[in-house]
């Protein structure tokens, strides 16, 4: 159980842009997860996605780490940015790009998306 929490924390800390979502970027299972993903794509964010659906414990452990009750959750540079509504607001105000630039540098590489399985027992 705490191992799962450790893996979630590691994704948050190590990945420049982490998106905990329902589904995956290629098969999104929820409208709000889609909205958050689209906001991040709009600024070319290199998204590392975690699907919370395979096991309810992922969502429980994530919320206990972040103190945020709903999915999706967006983290940039290890910091909770918020859910879909905040991601869209920050996109509209230009702050989403600013946050990415301050976390990744002004020339961050655009568009790469990958998926991490926090249930996996071995490192990939």
């Amino acid at each position, binding site marked *: 159980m705490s191992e799962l929490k450790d893996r979630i924390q590691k994704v948050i800390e190590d990945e420049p842009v982490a998106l905990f979502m329902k589904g995956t970027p290629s098969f999104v299972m929820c*409208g709000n997860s889609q909205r958050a993903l689209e906001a991040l794509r709009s600024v070319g964010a290199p998204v590392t996605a975690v699907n919370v659906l395979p096991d309810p414990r992922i969502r429980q452990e994530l919320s206990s780490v972040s*103190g945020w009750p*709903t999915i999706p959750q967006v983290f940039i540079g290890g910091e909770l940015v918020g859910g879909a*509504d905040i991601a869209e607001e920050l996109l509209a105000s230009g702050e989403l790009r600013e946050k990415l630039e301050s976390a990744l540098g002004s020339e961050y590489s655009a568009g790469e998306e990958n998926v991490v399985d926090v249930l996996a027992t071995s490192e990939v």
Partner: protein
Amino acid sequence: MAVDTLRGLLEHAFPSGHVDVIDRTGGGDHFHVKVVSPRFAGLGLVDQHRLVYDALAEPLADGTIHELRITTRSET
């Protein structure tokens, strides 16, 4: 869940503000809440939304609210 119940919870938490609740699907579980409150002054969006989540902790935890959209402003 009735829109009025939800509005009541929010007005209790944000007494001097303004609260709008929209039932997005008519099904009583997909809501968009808009809250204008001086309680948000000086807070980032994450902390503003946390205050709304706190006010709605019970219906969020028991699944009464299936999906929630939040818009917050500190001044009118």
